[in-house]
């Protein structure tokens, strides 16, 4: 089955310059290893979508891969702001960054509508909120029965969605457990989907019938990358490497230091380093 490929092949075959790309993960299961591969392959002019862009988007932005970011909360959770994002947005380094900003509710609904094949999402939102005045992709419609004014945003339909999950089985079906976020919706909303997983198991016979499973035919590539969500969490495998989240703030605080770190830890590295990073975290505990 050609579904199982290397991470290099998966990115090369599915992520192209100018694509609209969602690397999702609602604080849990963030696809860091796949994001690094996109950086190594020097993709340009990407439109990145994510509810909670964090360090991996900071890295992609700082390395010049990104033209535009669509998001609802862009920070370093528990630490502060995303310094590369702010440098790009406020000072156009390494180049100008456009943004489209929404609320979490709007983004969650937009992914849901994308998975549902609809052109737009309809929800009760943005009441009295300032974003409705500055974002032309926030509009309002009337309920045809009650006349209530409801918010609408375009559905999210990425060219490619990238996620990290716990397990695939030998057929390439993928299991996501715990805090599942918007990953299922992001995959089903996309034209193409890539999944990195911690582990490949024989079958899902012992998995709960209503667990979150993506059938293999909804995916373009499945790649085993143990530790691929480091420094974020993978429930059942490892906790968050919080020390790294804190360490990122000084690393990203100035341009040269950032570039040196990326050279050593991303450009000169490969997905195989993630397993050892996770082992390191666990050994510390």
């Amino acid at each position, binding site marked *: 089955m050609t579904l199982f490929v290397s991470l290099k092949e998966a990115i090369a075959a599915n992520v192209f310059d100018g694509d609209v790309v969602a690397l999702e993960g609602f604080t849990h299961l963030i696809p860091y290893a796949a994001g690094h591969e996109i950086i190594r392959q020097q993709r340009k002019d990407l439109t990145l979508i994510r509810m909670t862009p964090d360090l991996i988007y900071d890295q992609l932005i700082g390395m010049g891969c990104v033209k535009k970011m669509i998001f609802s909360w862009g920070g370093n959770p528990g630490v502060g702001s995303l310094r590369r*994002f702010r440098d790009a947005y406020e000072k156009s380094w390494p180049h100008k960054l456009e943004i489209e900003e929404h609320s979490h*509710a709007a983004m969650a609904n937009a992914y849901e509508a994308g998975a549902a094949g609809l052109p737009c999402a309809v929800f009760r939102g943005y009441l009295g909120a300032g974003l409705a005045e500055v974002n032309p992709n926030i509009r309002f419609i009337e309920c045809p029965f009650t006349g209530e004014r409801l918010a609408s945003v375009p559905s999210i339909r990425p060219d490619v969605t990238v996620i990290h999950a716990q397990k695939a089985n030998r057929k390439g079906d993928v299991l996501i457990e715990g805090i599942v976020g918007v990953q299922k919706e992001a995959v089903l909303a996309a034209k193409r989907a890539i999944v990195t997983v911690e582990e490949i198991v024989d079958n899902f016979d012992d998995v709960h019938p209503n667990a979150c499973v993506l059938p293999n035919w909804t995916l373009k590539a499945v790649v085993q990358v143990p530790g691929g969500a480091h420094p974020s969490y993978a429930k059942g495998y490892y906790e968050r490497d919080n020390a790294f989240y804190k360490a990122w703030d000084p690393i990203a605080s100035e341009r040269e230091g950032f570039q040196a770190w990326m050279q050593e830890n991303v450009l000169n590295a490969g997905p195989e380093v993630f397993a050892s990073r996770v082992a390191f975290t666990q050994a510390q505990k």
Partner: protein
Amino acid sequence: MNYTATEMMTVAAARAIRNDDVCFVGIGMPSAACNLARLTHAPDVTLIYESGTIGTKPDVLPLSIGDGELCDTAVTTVAVPEMFRYWLQGGRISVGFLGAAQLDKFGNLNTTVVGGDYNNPKVRLPGGGGAPEIATSCGEIFIVMKQSSRGFVDNIDFMTSLGHGKTGTEREALGIKTRGPSRLTTDLCIMETDPESKEFIVTSIHPGVTRKQIAENTGWAIRFADQVVETPAPNDTELAALRALNERTARAHAGQ
């Protein structure tokens, strides 16, 4: 026992939470206050984090909304679209907690930009996240925030999430049925929303704090209720529970 201003703020915020509340909890101060309430007077309170964990009972305070323990101790964990559609928009949350970089006397909040305008800000903040819909979908909003004249301003730079609007009448004009900000707990005092004007007025002052201090740390012309009480100091049970929680948390996250 001696206690810090932060402990006073956390305890005062926790006391407002009722045993039958369903709380939409953010990381940081709200998370500490809600879990303290659960560990003291409100053992059955339902805590929901926006990552989808419903009815969670963490033993330590989470590092982020993605902590495995939030899921492990939850009644159930749902996908994020369901969280925002069925649980928040569905009107199932009685209390939402919000904080901000700036707030005004009507409880309008800004976590988007400071200085300049939206397209050319002086400082770009992380943004609203869940706040715009939390502010209008929860039964009422409790705000917990350290008081300072920099954060408590006359005019916020951006209306990230609606409190009672620029004149106190906007919620009704927009047909919003929920109460909005009803309570603001700071390290100096407790403010409650005036039923008429919808402005925050000081109703309780923490022990040892003066009206002058409060006024100096507020960017708008602060009002005091006719009857202002002194906030009861944290009692031994409250302090012991809070400190044990903080110690467990520090131990669990040591080296992180």
